[in-house]
């Protein structure tokens, strides 16, 4: 069972705050959850708007030139809208990009099917052989994020 984005982003922030190479690209979301990122590091925490394809491509361009991008977006819009960018821009170049998907397991069921895709994100992301998929629990969180940070290649973390 996936856990809240709050826990995951708090754990990621421990690495983010100490390394200027990390940049955050948030897809027009993250009230409260991303306050530390935006308030303390606004020069490298961005709202990249309602532009998932370009955000993923941008993250790839950033990784190709020495940065460590973290993408934060709704699962269906990240995984499906920018699926080809994940494949061709990030995975094809085997880049160290961390993708955090929000709304796993129909967490936003009140919003309807636009924001829900059951566990189909796992099936889709499993197509990428070099992509590490993580679903932290409270017990595994610390180790999972450590693995994500140390992994040489793209990582997908699903959260509620």
């Amino acid at each position, binding site marked *: 069972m996936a856990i809240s984005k709050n826990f995951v982003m708090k754990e990621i922030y421990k690495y983010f705050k100490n390394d200027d190479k990390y940049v955050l690209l948030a897809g027009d979301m993250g009230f409260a959850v991303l306050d530390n990122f935006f308030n303390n590091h606004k020069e490298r925490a961005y709202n990249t708007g309602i532009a998932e394809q370009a955000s993923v491509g941008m993250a790839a*361009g950033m990784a190709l030139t020495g940065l460590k991008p973290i993408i934060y977006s709704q699962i269906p819009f990240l995984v499906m809208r920018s699926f080809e960018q994940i494949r061709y821009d990030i995975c094809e170049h085997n880049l160290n990009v961390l993708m955090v998907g929000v709304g796993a397991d129909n967490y936003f069921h009140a919003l309807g099917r636009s924001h829900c895709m059951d566990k189909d994100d796992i099936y889709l992301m499993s197509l990428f052989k070099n992509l590490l998929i993580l679903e932290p629990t409270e017990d595994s969180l610390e180790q999972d994020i450590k693995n994500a940070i140390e992994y040489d290649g793209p990582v997908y973390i699903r959260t509620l």
Partner: protein
Amino acid sequence: MNKKNLDSNNIREKTIEFACKTTAGHLAPSLSTVEMLTVLFNDYLKYDQTDASNETRDRLILSKGHGCYAYYVILNQLGFIPNCELENFNTDNSTLKGCLVQNSKYMIEASTGSLGHGLPLAVGMAKSFKLQNKTNKVICIVGDGEMQEGSNYESLILATQFKLDNLLIIVDANKLQAMDFVTDVGVDNNHLAQILKGFTPNNFYEIDGHDEYKLKETYNSFFNNTNETFSILVAHTTKGKGLQMIENESKYHYRCPTEDGYIYVPKEEI
């Protein structure tokens, strides 16, 4: 930097030779890029001929990754791509593909070929360099047909947010896409130019993309840009430029003229 001795006429000749000898199809979309690339590599782009991975190099992203033959010829003449790679092209032995595949030895910065991917990459690179206080420039060449892809407009919006004065977007406006003239599918290039000008009115250029003097004027402006916004050049070009039988003919987007009886004869033998 030192001036190189690339010559557009020679690059065009070698590009035609390369395609015809290997019966490779995307000759016409490559021929429209000859001058914009030659002038860029001769006088403006910063790179190290002894080290393709030198981090101080500028980045060229050829987003219309199918139109890469002139680019291959230039990288070959600069010593990045060995002769055998050009000779093996279009065979099972070639590393080079019909669309660009990233290769750090050959100074091919990114894989492109699926259209609408290069500009987001370029925007990310340009922002990355600014964040790291690096002076590298990023140049991205997109096709006019390619500008139908929505991801490009997402990128233009983000390029606006990030004030990327180190980014030049060149639209190779050769008027033709794979099947039709761009006007038959959507907006004509004058309309496209108006749309693009709206994104960056003070750093917008529209010229004959085969005119080396005008290309130099534009590149001078971009490489000395202090306007705090990105630059766009709409370069009006001719698809298939230099080989009359394929110029402005949609049939030759992906068709080697040798398939229709054209026999390549080196200029020096004429």
